[in-house]
């Protein structure tokens, strides 16, 4: 069991008194015992010496009466004397104090001589111990006899014992007094400490409004008659002024707290009102709790403001459409917003944070190294266009702005924003393509329009000439060649006009599935002979659109033919239709050689072809693009070289009002 403070103080005080008593009493006992013993020795010696001196003349004159009187006088001088007797120079007893004869053993029990004239001998007679003192009676160095006395050692012991009992009683009284005082003191101290403990527990429990010392009956303004109501200590009866900051004491310099405390200790108010250490502790603890309470209140307010601010910035962070991230010194992401997660293709933050580093998302390691080097020197990077790769392997074009967090010269982290500009870049490309094609279309239409008429004249005149020439003549053959090539030119011109939408379009309700099935019906048998399968995946719920059936069939025909040409031997062409987001999607995919990325942006250009000269006009895809855009749609292409390509035609599903407006 652990002792309480009161018990410890009590035991401590008693132990101190006990130890002190012991430490003092032991030497005192020894000193007093020795002193008493010496005192008895001196006394015995004095008595026996006196006896020897006083008995000198009676011994010389053999005055028995006087000798007896001297002995009786010695016996009567002290109650401690048991006996006294005188021996002559021949050790014969001259006189003694015994009533019933002289104890013969005593005569030679303590021999002395002129050379050793004084001697003390402890004798034991039955149970009694006796100190026998012997003194030679001499005159001029001649031994006349011996004086002997006996003092009871038991009486010496009794005297010592009495003295020790007195010390013991005094010690016990001292211990009792110390115990009483210690108990009182311990009670007083522990009651105050308990109050402190209770207050401490209250503080631990969160109650900072504690009262240990209560209201102060005397305050600094009471003592000094101060009336400065602007002083924070004025009117405060719960705290001492030296625990209050910013007091306006007349004798304290304004300034730092350390100076104030130094001055306070010299202040008369402090000297008069400050208590003992426990009182000071209680008051300072009280003041500390109040100060703590005030600080906690301030802290709570600050925390709320910070929480609001943090929530605001977190919201901004999380709702940002751009990726916002933070990395550690090694470049690993430790925070990223939802936009970043989406951009990089991660479902949860746990999949990414502290696992993926900034360098991991770069398509080109060199780009990352350039940025890292720039961060190291300039500490920031602004709007750097880089290529990154998402978790799914999709490459993205982004603008990266970030700044490095440094501690000295060491980078401790990095924070930044990644803006996805892939769409914008694609749009820009498409716009560029569209502009290019539009320009080409206008140019081609102008040229075709101008060429079409001369071609008509050439064809007309060549056909007129043919009628007039015999069929087996050379001229007929030549004219036939002119007619044939003129017709070929006319087809090209017609295609150019179609591309430039200069041909007439017959808009009607078109069933895309039907158009596709008609195209496939024409090509299926021929393709199957070449080992190419056409796989249809048609959405039967596909709504109709408004368009030119023939032109759309031409588009599908061009796409399927292009797919056929991409497949060198055997393969598969998949055609899938579906309706998504108000648009009809027709995807034509092949298992052919794919498109070289270097030429992908040119495939819709007129007259661009990968076929040998004379085998293609290079107008198929450009005409198809023209038809689709004429229908308000779009064509996209995705291709993986060596694995095939997929052309996707997107055509808008007409809205009801639009349909009404188009209806004749």
């Amino acid at each position, binding site marked *: 069991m652990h002792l309480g403070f009161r018990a410890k103080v009590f035991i401590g005080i008693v132990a101190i008194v006990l130890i002190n008593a012991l430490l003092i009493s*032991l030497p005192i006992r020894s000193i007093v015992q020795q002193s008493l013993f010496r005192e008895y020795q001196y006394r015995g010696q004095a008595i026996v010496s006196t006896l020897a001196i006083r008995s000198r003349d009676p011994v*010389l004159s053999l005055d028995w009466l006087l000798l007896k009187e001297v002995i009786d006088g010695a016996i009567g001088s002290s109650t401690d004397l048991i006996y006294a007797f005188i021996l002559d120079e021949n050790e014969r007893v001259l*006189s003694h104090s015994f009533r019933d*004869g002289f104890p013969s*053993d005593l005569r030679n*029990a303590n021999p002395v001589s002129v050379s050793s004239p004084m001697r003390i001998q402890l004798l034991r007679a039955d149970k009694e111990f006796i100190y026998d003192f012997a003194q030679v009676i001499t*005159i001029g160095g001649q031994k006349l006899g011996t004086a002997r006395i006996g003092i009871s050692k038991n009486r010496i012991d009794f005297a010592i014992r009495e003295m020790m009992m007195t010390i013991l009683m005094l010690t016990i009284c001292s211990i009792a007094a110390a115990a009483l005082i210690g108990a009182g003191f311990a009670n007083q101290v522990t009651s105050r400490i308990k109050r402190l403990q209770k207050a401490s527990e209250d503080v631990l429990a969160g109650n900072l409004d504690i009262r240990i010392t209560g209201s102060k009956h005397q305050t600094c303004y009471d003592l000094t008659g101060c009336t400065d109501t602007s002083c924070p200590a004025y009117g405060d009866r719960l705290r001492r002024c030296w625990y209050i900051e910013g007091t306006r004491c007349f004798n304290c310099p304004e300034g730092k707290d350390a100076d104030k405390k130094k001055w306070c200790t010299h202040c008369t108010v402090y000297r008069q009102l400050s208590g003992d250490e426990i009182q000071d502790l209680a008051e300072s603890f009280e003041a500390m709790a109040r100060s703590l309470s005030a600080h906690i209140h301030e802290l709570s307010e600050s925390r709320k403001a910070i929480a609001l601010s943090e929530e605001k910035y977190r919201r901004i962070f999380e709702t940002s459409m751009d990726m916002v991230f933070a990395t550690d010194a090694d470049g690993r992401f430790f925070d990223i917003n939802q936009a970043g997660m989406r951009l990089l293709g991660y479902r949860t933050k746990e999949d990414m944070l502290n696992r993926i580093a900034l360098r991991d998302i770069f398509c080109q390691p060199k780009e990352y190294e350039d940025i890292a080097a720039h961060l190291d020197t300039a500490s920031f990077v602004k709007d750097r266009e880089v290529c990154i790769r998402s978790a799914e392997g999709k490459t993205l074009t982004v603008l990266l702005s970030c700044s490095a967090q440094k501690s000295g010269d060491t980078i401790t982290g990095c924070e930044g924003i990644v803006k996805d500009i892939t769409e914008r870049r694609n749009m820009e490309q498409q716009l560029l393509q569209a502009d290019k094609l539009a320009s080409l279309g206008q140019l081609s239409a102008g040229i075709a329009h101008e060429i079409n008429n001369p071609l008509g004249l050439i064809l007309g005149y060549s056909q007129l000439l043919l009628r007039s020439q015999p069929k087996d003549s050379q001229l007929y053959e030549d004219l036939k060649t002119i007619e044939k090539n003129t017709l070929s030119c006319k087809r090209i011109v017609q295609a150019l006009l179609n591309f430039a939408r200069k041909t007439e379009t017959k808009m009607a309700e078109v069933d895309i599935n039907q158009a596709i099935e008609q195209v496939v019906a024409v090509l299926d048998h021929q393709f199957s002979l070449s080992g190419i399968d056409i796989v249809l995946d048609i959405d039967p719920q596909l709504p109709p659109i408004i368009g030119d059936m023939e032109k759309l069939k031409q588009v599908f025909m061009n796409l399927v033919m292009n797919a056929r040409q991409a497949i060198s031997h055997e393969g598969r062409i998949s055609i899938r239709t579906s309706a998504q987001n108000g648009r009809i999607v027709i995807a034509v995919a092949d298992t052919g050689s794919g498109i070289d990325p270097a030429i992908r942006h040119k495939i819709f250009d007129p007259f661009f072809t990968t076929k040998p000269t004379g085998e293609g006009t290079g107008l198929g895809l450009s005409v198809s693009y023209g038809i689709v855009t004429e229908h308000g749609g779009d064509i996209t292409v995705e291709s993986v070289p060596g694995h095939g390509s997929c052309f996707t035609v997107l055509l808008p599903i007409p809205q009801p009002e639009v349909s009404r407006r188009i209806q004749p």
Partner: protein
Amino acid sequence: MSGSHRWMIAWAVVWASMFGIGGCMQSENVVSIDMNRREAVDTRNSTPAVTYAYLPQYAHSVSYERHHLLIAYLREKTGLNIKQVFPESFNEHMRMVSQGKIDISFTNPYVYVITAHRYGQKVFAQIVESSGKAAFRGQIICRKDNEAIRTLADCKGKRVIAVDLTSAGGFLYPMGHFFEHGIRQEDFAELSFSPGPGGKQEKVVLAVYSGQFDVGLIREGTLNVVADKIDIDQIRVLATSEWYPAWVYSTRPDVATDVIAKIRQALFELDEHHPEHRPILEKADFRKVIPADDRDMQPVWHLMKTLGIDLNG
């Protein structure tokens, strides 16, 4: 055993040792005796002895100290069992002479004259004082600072103390000196004698020194005896008497003559130049012993007669 028990036992041992009953200061050699074995004390001296007494002008211890070597010498020299006895006073000395308890007396001539007259005492030797004379003197002393006494005449009306009525140096000789100067015993305001027993010469000096008496009568040499007790510079010797016979050895008439002869011979053989005799003579405070008879005592007779002293007391 738990720690707390050990502590309690340790405390108990410490306190028991502190307040233990009994216990010697240190290890002491104890002699066991039987107090019940008793014997009767017989102080009778069964051995016959020649008794030798020194007139107790000084304390017994002084008398013993002065003469014990001499007695030892005599004992050895004569083969006699000589024993010194110590009368308490001059009167007792004379009474013991009369009772036959003193065989050899060493007295002043005054006492000898009285005992010779009264008890037939016979003088057979005389000492030669340390002054070299077979004579000595008395002295009249007072305090040095006693301005009232400058001359013998100033002693009139003063308180006077003498050694004994039978003292030679301490009464008879100084009184003879007073007589010669016309001062009588009745001229003193008071004449007292030193209280006995023993140490009578010293007591006179101490009485004057303490101021109890104005004038003291002592034999010459006494001041040296008390030099270790008082500051003798505070004592002034007012006057010194004429020379009178020194102390004498006498014997009772019934003591065997061969005994007397042996003792007298031994005394005469004492030689201050003899290395064994010198300490004896120095202790006894005389230089040698010479033959003497009643004729040598005449000055004392005359002085007694002059002073009107009745030999029959």
